[in-house]
């Protein structure tokens, strides 16, 4: 089944819940994307940049020592941390950057949580000669100062957002306000599979390159598909990107890992699918962490990139239909997984995919040694050194 439908719905989820001012822009964007998507030259340029600029395909790495240590399934790491800018975010920004240029929009607006998407937008803006304005919650500016500096070096303007929880949610809201105001000249380059139609579809399509490569690599290197795939879920772009090309492979379990923060029972977490209920935020209907009155709840995660009360509508659909399963890992589990991967494989993952590694570490021992467990290692950990040092009580 091809989802979303014409109105951008994945079953009861998705859609376009936006102010009227943006409706024409979303319709224009969808038409432009469909036209670009049907043009072979557009994809040729995208794939050429992915290859020659972003360093794709990223490796599918067999983590032997980690597999041995866990004593079960063979872990295969999809190394998005090795992509240019250090995370999977570049796949989407290259695609949407090309689309913005095709639409004649000279100014990119973006939000960022961990700063990885902001860096990827600033990078693509420099590459394509476009202007970039990145909104970032004040709290995230504080905990991701290195990425703020990177964005500035790349020529982007970073605007701190002081409202509310001062994290990704407010950054997205503020980016929408900018877009409402400057809709004629600006392109909103949303960084995850969230927001109004066509973003969840479009971002998924650009990120699907992760799963397309991983599927081909598994078949060519191991002669078969993995038994399970584990990926972290904040908004859900790396997970949907790796899941999507496997959606019709019924033998492959798809497992999304949300941030359980300090524990689901503490209320301080970001496990939207695990603990939320359907609602509307940032232009689409999906699961949402909200109070009884429908007010969006504050969230917590050690990882800025997962610290978001919403989740992509297609994940909501995958959860309800049972095609994917969603679990959660705490801050402490992610931190332990971070150290485990560092010491067994020489890889410092970002704290976001450290949540996926944490769940893989629980799952692998329950699987046979001949089984393949694929983990999407969506980004590298350099940006998280301050956070990790602080969590470990180390003064840098």
């Amino acid at each position: 089944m091809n989802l979303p439908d014409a109105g951008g719905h994945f079953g009861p989820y998705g859609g376009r819940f936006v102010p009227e001012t943006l409706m024409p822009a979303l319709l224009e964007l969808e038409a432009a994307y469909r036209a670009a998507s049907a043009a072979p030259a557009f994809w040729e340029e995208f794939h050429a940049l992915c290859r020659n600029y972003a360093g794709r395909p990223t490796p599918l790495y067999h983590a032997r020592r980690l597999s041995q240590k866990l004593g079960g399934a063979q872990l295969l790491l999809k190394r998005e941390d090795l992509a240019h800018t250090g995370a999977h975010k570049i796949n989407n920004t290259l695609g949407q950057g090309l689309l913005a240029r095709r639409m004649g929009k000279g100014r990119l607006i973006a939000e960022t949580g961990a700063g990885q998407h902001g860096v990827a937008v600033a990078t693509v803006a420099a590459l394509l000669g476009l202007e970039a304005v990145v909104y970032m919650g004040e709290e995230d500016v504080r905990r991701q100062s290195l990425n703020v500096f990177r964005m500035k070096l790349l020529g982007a303007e970073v605007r701190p957002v002081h409202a509310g929880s001062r994290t990704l949610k407010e950054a997205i809201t503020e980016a929408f306000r900018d877009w409402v105001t400057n809709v004629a000249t600006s392109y909103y380059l949303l960084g995850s599979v969230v927001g109004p139609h066509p973003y969840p579809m479009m971002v998924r399509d650009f990120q699907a390159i992760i799963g397309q490569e991983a599927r081909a690599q598994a078949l060519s290197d191991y002669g078969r598909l993995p038994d399970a795939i584990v990926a972290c879920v904040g908004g859900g772009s790396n997970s949907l990107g790796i899941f999507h090309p496997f959606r019709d492979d019924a033998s492959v379990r798809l497992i999304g890992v949300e941030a359980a923060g300090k524990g689901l029972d503490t209320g301080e977490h970001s496990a939207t699918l695990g603990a939320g209920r359907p609602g509307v935020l940032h232009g689409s209907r999906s699961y949402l962490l909200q109070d009884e009155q429908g007010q969006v709840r504050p969230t917590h995660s050690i990882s800025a990139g997962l610290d978001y009360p919403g989740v992509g509508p297609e994940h909501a659909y995958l959860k309800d239909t049972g095609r994917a399963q969603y679990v959660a890992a705490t801050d402490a589990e992610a931190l332990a997984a971070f150290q485990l991967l560092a010491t067994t494989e020489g890889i410092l993952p970002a704290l976001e995919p450290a949540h996926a590694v944490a769940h893989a570490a629980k799952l692998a021992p329950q699987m046979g040694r001949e089984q393949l467990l694929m983990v999407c290692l969506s980004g590298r950990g350099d940006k998280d050194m301050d956070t990790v040092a602080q969590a470990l009580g180390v003064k840098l």
Partner: protein
Amino acid sequence: MSRAAIAHPRPLGQAFRKGRPALIAYLTVGYPDLATTRRAVPALAAAGADLIELGIPFSDPLADGATIQEASFAALEGGITPAHCLGLAAELAPQVAVPLAFMSYYNPIASYGEEAFCAQAARSGVGGLIVPDLPPEEGESLEAACARHGLELVYFLAPTSTPERLALVAKRARGFIYLVSLTGVTGARAALPAGLEEFVGRVRRAAGPKPLAVGFGVASPEQARRVAAVADGVIVGSRLLQLIKEDPTLGKVTAFVGELRRALDGMAAGKGR
């Protein structure tokens, strides 16, 4: 609630009378506190407002500028819930002669339950709903719930709206059509955009006799007059909240609404619809 306290919903169209441009006032319920809103609604009606929008505060007001954001956050800090807003409307509806509408983002309504919310809103004497993040494409079920309870669902048009969207909203909107004066968020502005008259004209040709009210950015008697020269109603919000903040005794805000009323009444009579 006693039987006598149950008000009948007043259709929003009552605000629009021939030869009298409608003055529509927006307030965030519970800003700075519930007691102030309780006093402000009858005071604004007495000062010349023809329709009052009761804003239900929301944690993520995407379409609002700094003033209404601040008011919403303050109201939420004060513990205001949709239930308080419904209760306040029920209290106020019998006290004022003008129609009341709820302005709410979609999620608090969805969370309350569309059916339950509409039923309760109608029982509270509210005539309609204004939902800034609900375009007609997503509005079918709320429209049906409104219709079942005799509420009108107001839709928006913006300067960016295409002819197809003008036709769609003209067909689906009830009560009146809310025209966003500018591409941007709510908030007082020094000047309204140059293309305002042309925009209202385009909507008028598509919408026929449906009342058109213009909001976003309107903050002075001069601006109100300019709007009323082409539209049927003028919506003022952020400026009122600023004045309530400056003077919680409501002296400034009622004086300002009186000024707007006189500015509109002083216009050449007989602008026909």
